[in-house]
């Protein structure tokens, strides 16, 4: 049967190898070895690509949870931001971000280095089986890392929702995912100083979530709270308009996290990936129970939106050490994260930092907690090194984001007008309506 014509290189190799192996000639031996390596390489690489599409779908998760937890009149705006970020994050990462984050030898132990513009795979085996010791190809490396990149800016998107100008946010994103994230990432994953200093962050409690969380905190502070959130010293809840959508978002994030953490094993290693699946799942489940119990006890009724945050809190918490902690420890870390996120949400409301979706509580606070917990529980990680790392990342990401936001505020402006905010950003920024025909009282 004549099928789609394409490079059947690998399968052909197998057959060659297999058939020659059955023959008695001694030259056959290397072919079998090649087949075996090729098989392992293929399996590993498949796992990394599976992880890639799992991380991709997290962007839909973010879109849904952020939209669901905000008001109907700002829906188009939030969706738009989340779609735009994926494109901006990936393209800037291709243009220079990847080479800032992974500058090669130049960055070893350092703070910054630049590997040049664009992406291009080393020729032949150097970009394939030899690129990462048979774990994945150059292109796989790029695309998996690129999916992570946009995440950091997406975290900010939730905290600044319902009041930021869309143009300003797009510009912020370019700089945040194009520069802040890859520089911060290079310190550890790119082999920089933090890596040398023994800082441990398996899949990004700090590198991705805290960095995004610091950006979220800076944004929420510079913008100020939404109109009507804090009135006469009281917190007036502004209800999310679509909790099924928010729940879809939480589940998709959790789903994607299997790639986020599972792929961070950087190969299909059965022991490693399966342990990470267990710790990740238990951490999330414990986060659900933590937030559920807390909200049931404190507010008398179980609060779904808090439980959704609890699951994410558990996931963020588990991310730094998912590969070096035990399942039991993952339950402890996740459970604490679920409790912490509840009080963190209350705390930020108390200090009048308005974060519509709880991004700061989930990603920053639990990112810090997870990084610390890795020092406490994880073998081979130290509390001191973790604390240093946490501090250093905060000292970089928060001021960097502040500067970006202030620069925008005093040039093209950061916040929409009072009229636009009241009427909704969908109308103001997009001349659009998310739910045409539905009768909605905003």
């Amino acid at each position: 049967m004549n099928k789609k014509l394409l490079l059947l290189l690998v399968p052909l190799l197998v057959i060659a190898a297999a058939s020659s192996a059955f023959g008695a000639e001694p030259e056959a031996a290397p072919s079998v070895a090649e087949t075996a390596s090729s098989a392992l390489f293929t399996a590993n690489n498949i796992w990394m690509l599976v992880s890639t599409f799992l991380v991709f779908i997290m962007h839909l998760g973010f879109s849904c949870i952020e939209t669901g937890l905000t008001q109907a009149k700002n829906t188009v705006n939030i969706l738009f931001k989340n779609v735009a970020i994926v494109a901006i994050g990936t393209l800037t990462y291709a243009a220079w971000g990847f080479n800032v984050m992974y500058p090669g030898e130049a960055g070893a132990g350092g703070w910054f280095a630049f590997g040049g513009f664009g992406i291009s795979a080393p020729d032949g085996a150097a970009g394939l089986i030899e690129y990462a010791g048979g774990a994945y190809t150059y292109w796989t490396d790029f695309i998996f890392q690129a999916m992570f990149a946009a995440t950091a800016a997406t975290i900010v998107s939730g905290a600044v929702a319902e009041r930021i100008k869309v143009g300003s946010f797009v510009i912020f994103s370019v700089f945040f995912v194009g520069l802040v994230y890859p520089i911060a990432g290079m310190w550890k994953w790119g082999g920089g100083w933090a890596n040398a200093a023994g800082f441990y962050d398996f899949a990004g409690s700090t590198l991705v979530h805290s960095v995004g969380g610091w950006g979220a905190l800076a944004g929420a502070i510079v913008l100020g709270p939404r109109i009507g959130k804090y009135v006469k010293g009281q917190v007036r809840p502004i209800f999310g308009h679509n909790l099924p959508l928010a729940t879809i978002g939480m589940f998709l994030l959790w789903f994607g996290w299997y790639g986020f953490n599972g792929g961070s094993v950087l190969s299909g290693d059965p022991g490693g990936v399966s342990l990470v699946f267990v710790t990740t799942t238990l951490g999330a489940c414990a986060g659900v129970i933590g937030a559920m119990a807390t909200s049931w006890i404190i507010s008398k009724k179980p609060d779904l939106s808090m439980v959704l945050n609890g699951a994410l809190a558990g996931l963020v918490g588990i991310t730094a050490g998912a590969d070096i902690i035990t399942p039991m420890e993952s339950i402890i870390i996740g459970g604490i994260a679920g409790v912490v996120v509840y009080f963190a949400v209350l705390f930020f409301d108390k200090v009048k930092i308005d974060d519509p979706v709880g991004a700061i509580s989930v990603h920053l606070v639990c990112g810090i907690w997870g990084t610390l917990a890795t020092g406490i529980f994880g073998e081979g990680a130290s509390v001191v090194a973790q604390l240093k790392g946490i501090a250093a990342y905060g000292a970089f990401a928060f001021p960097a984001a502040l500067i970006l936001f202030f620069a925008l505020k005093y040039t093209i402006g950061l916040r929409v007008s009072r009229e636009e905010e009241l009427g909704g950003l969908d109308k103001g920024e997009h001349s659009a309506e998310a739910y045409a025909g539905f009768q909605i009282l905003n």
Partner: protein
Amino acid sequence: MKLITAIIQPDKLEDVKEALFEAEVKKMTVSTVRGCGQQAGYEESYRGAVKTINLLPKVKIEIAVNDDFVDATIDAICKGAHTGKIGDGKIFIRSLEDVIRIRTKDKGEDAIG
């Protein structure tokens, strides 16, 4: 002619409709409203903050009737909507100067039914 407007509990709509049909009142216009009255509001909590919702979901029924139907209509509404608990609602009666049936351009008492 009168225009009778009733504000009732949402879950009583079916019963009121039935009572009206029995009373041979078969035309009405219904809409969703939110009401605030003697009935205490309830609290909604969201992300740790609490808000008292005192605009409760209600259903509004509007019926234009000729004068000889007013009492039957009111009785039917009361029959269908009454539970004796706060929040049962109100009926407002106003005079109606004229009615026009768009389809036939009939006016007045003939047009109402």
